[in-house]
């Protein structure tokens, strides 16, 4: 049931192929219009696509993480986060432990990168670590590792590059066309009187394509992204055997009003919730990378088991559609019924509260920012910035002088 999810991307692949065809058509028609030769346009389209691919390859994950101002952490910096990631790595059957990053931001979000599943990374915001309990964090990390395991990062990178090429081509072509129309439109039409009708048809098709292609590509892109989001939710439920954890995490994420400061359009599908979600916006329509949070929560809450087929059943129950699910068929048939586990920790035990989680998180952030920690005997804790000079510091609470 695990590999199947990864390999059964047929529908997604068909959509990617549709986008590629769109690119070929737009290149051909524009070539026909500008040079009277479709092949020329096609070559230009492919060259633009190749350049964007190179850019995408080289400005890889490190730059993405850099733009998000993410800091890499080790096991000692934040043991709980590290452990939860390792637990999900085991549950998902990933072979290599992904790198873990923290983003110093009060917004609640998380994302995964890495086109190669052996060189992947997950990043979470500090706000997320402070607000979520262990089960909820597990659900979110399960969702992110599912993106890695299902190879969504690769798929979405391919999609966004195709989309980018189509948008760039149409944009430039429309500029050139308008420029031509203003400067030399008259001359073109009069000098080629004979082929006028054919020319006009090509012009009309080109115009239509320039307007429609970027929109169509965008819609395909969103459709692929939303599908992968559902699948990642289903996989997270399968890994954790506890869909309520992810559901309750999504409730907190949806209620949070903070917007991520360093979000990036290209990486939007990799976040657990859409980082560009505006307040009060019903993020439910076709023009979103993510399905609406409330719907994702309702599906997860309606699950009576942890298998992908159960997720599919819950999805259909909520949509009340006749037999059309969201999870690929082979992912369903391969898995039997899988029962849920109970909430952890078992009733009666206490989990670290918000205060403790906040200190745990800021402790990790100070460590990765290379602050030195000094504990005064009176119980006050001082943290000195890496640029701190001088060899003693006075405790403001008890007045002791502590040598650094």
């Amino acid at each position, binding site marked *: 049931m695990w590999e199947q999810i990864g390999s059964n991307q047929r529908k997604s692949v068909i959509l990617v192929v549709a986008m590629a065809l769109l690119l070929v058509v737009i290149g051909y028609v524009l070539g026909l219009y500008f040079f009277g030769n479709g092949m020329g346009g096609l070559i230009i389209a492919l060259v633009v696509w190749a350049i964007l691919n190179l850019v995408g390859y080289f400005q890889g994950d490190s730059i993405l993480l850099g733009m998000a101002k993410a800091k890499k952490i080790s096991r000692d910096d934040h043991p709980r986060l590290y452990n*939860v990631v390792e637990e999900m790595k*085991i549950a*998902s059957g990933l072979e290599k432990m992904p790198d873990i990053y923290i983003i110093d931001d009060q917004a609640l979000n998380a994302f995964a990168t890495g086109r190669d599943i052996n060189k992947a990374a997950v990043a979470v915001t500090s706000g997320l670590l402070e607000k979520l309990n262990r089960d909820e964090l597990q659900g979110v990390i399960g969702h992110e590792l599912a993106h890695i395991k299902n190879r969504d990062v690769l798929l979405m990178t391919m999609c966004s590059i195709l989309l980018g090429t189509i948008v760039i081509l149409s944009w430039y072509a429309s500029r050139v066309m308008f420029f031509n129309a203003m400067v030399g439109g008259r001359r073109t039409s009069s000098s080629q009187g004979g082929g006028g009708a054919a020319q006009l048809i090509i012009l009309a098709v080109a115009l239509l394509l320039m307007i429609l292609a970027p929109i169509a590509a965008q819609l395909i892109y969103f459709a692929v992204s939303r599908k992968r989001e559902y699948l990642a939710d289903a996989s997270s439920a399968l890994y954790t055997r506890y869909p309520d954890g992810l559901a309750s995490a999504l409730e907190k994420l949806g209620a949070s009003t903070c917007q991520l400061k360093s979000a990036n359009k290209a990486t939007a599908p990799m976040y657990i919730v859409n980082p560009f979600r505006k307040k009060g916006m019903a993020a439910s329509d076709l023009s979103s990378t993510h399905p609406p949070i409330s719907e994702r929560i309702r599906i997860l809450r309606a699950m009576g088991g942890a298998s992908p087929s159960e997720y599919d059943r819950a999805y259909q129950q909520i949509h009340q559609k006749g037999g059309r699910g969201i999870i690929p068929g082979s992912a369903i048939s391969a898995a039997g019924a899988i029962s849920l586990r109970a909430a952890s920790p078992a009733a009666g035990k206490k989990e670290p509260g918000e205060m403790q989680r906040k200190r745990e998180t800021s402790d990790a952030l100070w460590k990765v920012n290379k602050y030195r920690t000094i504990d005064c005997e009176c119980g006050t804790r001082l943290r000195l910035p890496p640029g701190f000079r001088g060899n003693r510091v006075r405790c403001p609470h008890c007045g002791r002088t502590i040598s650094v």
Partner: protein
Amino acid sequence: MLAAYIIGGIVVILAVIFVALYNALVKLRNQVKNAWAQIDVQLKRRHDLIPNLMETVKGYMKHERETLEAVTKARNLAQQVASSGAGVRSRAESELGAALGKLIAVAESYPDLKANQNFLALQEELTSTENKISFSRQYYNDSVLRYNNQTMVFPSSLVAGMAGFKADDFFEITVAAEKETPKVSFT
């Protein structure tokens, strides 16, 4: 002549199918092996954590000698049978899981202990190790299920029979965190 070509073609196709099915079985069997190795790693980690835990709690829990001894005893037993088969091991490990669960439940009534930084760190490690054991068991059992299915469905059952792929055992174990939760069942 033509017949020879046709027969030759069929033989080649059959060989290709055989190799593909064989490789699929090998891949699944390796996955089962890796999953088993992962369980091993986590169980070893559990055994390694216990002496540390004992050292930390014994100063606080003087009146809980029985509980502490039960854990130590179960751990020693589990270590002794570490190289035995799945059945023996899972019994010993379940015992240890139950003893640990009891210890942690008792620890809840010692506020001093719960304020101890060392204990808190150990508790996080222990909780996570118990989780990792149950997740690796979960993945192992899923892998076994898939492998066993593959050895039983036609046509790869023929390949499995010829090349000697045998069905594997599932691994059942109780961990400290799931004393009262329903067992994961595969139907």
